[in-house]
């Protein structure tokens, strides 16, 4: 029999593991991957160039739309740089509200990731549990900011929304439920043998490779590198909070899972601390329209890792240059290493394990009835009711299922 020949297959730009485009040219020998050539850039929208034609405030809303999941990340990272250039001292209450929304964003992002990861390995029950619990966080974000994503909480010099005592109580109540569920997920991840066996030794990235390839966030921390901007280069008021940097030395997808689940616990604890110590005072300071010439480099620990923004001002009301380096760009370079000499079947979960970004921004649906000329708008509440009734008409009652099978 003749020996196996290498085969090249193109995975992407549209492919099963991601909702966003990226291309992986994979060379295979049998079922083993010999090399991977990654191509990104399909989502390049010219946002950095566009910032040069907009005012600092307009850019805040533009940059918040870089990502549908970690929108607050980009908005905060950018606004910190602008505030540094304008020498603004952001009120402490505003700093706390920024952190609060930031940690809620981490909760929903990690829960979303956990669901996607479970789906990639065929554990769809866990996927649905995790996404159900993510809705608790999404409801909190909608409650306190008016939006499920793109919360627009920041403004230059502070925040646009306050937290009332009732909202704080709602958040604490949701934390009770979430903390219990997160504990359950940690038990599942660390005790359920199918999950452990499927994720252990998969997508290995040694500590040395993680360091030299510039991996960030949970990807780096699961390779034993205890880096976290909130600890190393604290922004907002993170220096006032008590939290652990979660690391794992397993260097595989299993480690990345455990790190993210433990980070959920840390975020809940931080949210409790913030609400207990929420300072009184104003929400904003007045920001100038024109920003003095200068340069600022801002860092932020996004759910996926370090996000950086560089802003150069020239004394006008528009920036001279805004540079963004999002965490996935830092982590994507490690993916080829994680896949080398591994099975093709591991490709979806390995790619998903760096948690590359995708959007979930729809909260209002425009309906055009067949034949009708006019359009109707469906609100979030109507859409939700429509979904429940659609299933009910087909004999599935989610409420009953939930009461029957879900503990509590």
């Amino acid at each position: 029999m003749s020996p196996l020949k290498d085969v090249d297959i193109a995975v992407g730009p549209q492919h099963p593991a991601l909702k966003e485009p990226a291309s992986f040219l994979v060379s295979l020998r049998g079922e083993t991957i010999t090399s991977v050539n990654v191509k990104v850039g399909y989502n390049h929208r010219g946002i950095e160039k566009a910032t040069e034609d907009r005012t600092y405030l307009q850019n805040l809303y533009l940059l918040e739309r870089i990502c549908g999941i970690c929108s607050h990340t980009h908005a905060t990272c950018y606004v910190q740089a602008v505030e540094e250039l304008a020498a603004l001292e952001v009120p402490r209450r505003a700093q706390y509200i920024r952190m609060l929304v930031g940690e809620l964003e981490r909760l929903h992002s990690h829960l979303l990731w956990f669901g996607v990861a479970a789906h990639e390995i065929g554990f769809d029950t866990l996927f649905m549990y995790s996404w159900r619990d993510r809705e608790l966080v999404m409801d909190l974000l909608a409650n306190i900011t008016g939006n499920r994503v793109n919360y627009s909480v920041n403004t230059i010099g502070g925040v646009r929304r306050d937290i009332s005592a009732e909202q704080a109580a709602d958040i604490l109540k949701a934390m009770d439920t979430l903390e219990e569920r997160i504990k359950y997920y940690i038990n599942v991840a660390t005790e359920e043998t199918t999950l452990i066996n499927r994720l252990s030794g998969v997508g290995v990235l040694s500590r040395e490779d993680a360091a030299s390839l510039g991996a960030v966030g949970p990807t780096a921390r699961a390779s034993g590198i205890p880096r976290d901007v909130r600890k190393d280069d604290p922004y907002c008021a993170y220096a006032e909070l008590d939290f652990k940097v979660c690391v794992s030395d397993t260097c595989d997808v299993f480690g990345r899972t455990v790190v993210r689940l433990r980070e959920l616990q840390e975020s809940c604890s931080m949210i409790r601390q913030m609400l207990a110590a929420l300072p009184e005072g104003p929400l904003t300071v007045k920001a100038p329209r024109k920003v003095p010439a200068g340069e600022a480099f801002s860092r932020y620990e996004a759910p996926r890792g370090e996000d950086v923004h560089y802003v150069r001002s020239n004394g006008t009301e528009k920036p001279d240059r805004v540079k963004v380096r999002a965490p996935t760009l830092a982590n994507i370079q490690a993916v080829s290493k994680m896949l080398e000499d591994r099975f093709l079947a591991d490709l979806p979960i390995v790619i998903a394990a760096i948690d590359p970004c995708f959007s979930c921004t729809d909260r209002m649906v425009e309906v055009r009835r067949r034949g009708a000329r006019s359009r109707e708008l469906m609100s979030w509440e109507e859409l939700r009711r429509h979904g429940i009734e659609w299933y009910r008409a087909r004999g599935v009652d989610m409420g009953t299922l939930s009461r029957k099978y879900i503990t509590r």
Partner: protein
Amino acid sequence: MDKEQDVVAKMREIFPFPEGSIAVQRARRINAEFREGDFDDLFNRTVSAGEFTMLPAISGLDQGDCFAVIYHLAREDGIVLNLKRIVPKEKAEVRSVTRLFPCAELYERELMDMLGIAVNGLSAGRRYPLPEGWPEGQHPLRKDWNKESLDT
């Protein structure tokens, strides 16, 4: 800010920075500007003497009369050195730093695509972030570029 001042002192030992071209901006932020000399040697020595273990980003700028490339170097203790290298427009090229920081590959490809700065010593690979088939000589982050430039 003793640690930051230590880094500045070490940088001054490595290279005779003219007055005003290196300064501590605030806690954990140092800015330095390099105009003439052996940049590659300065970069290598800065990384080892300053204990910089990370290169979170490289920013390319069109400053009108010249380009600039800022290497944002970071240490484990949170100190960031924004090392700016001025690049003349008539000789828009730099040397790759991927030997020290393999992670720099995509950041350097971005310099090539978006500003048209040549990066010598970068291994062959697919372009980033502009699409295959993007016209030659069109670099969107140059100040004289606008979308009408594509029609010419």
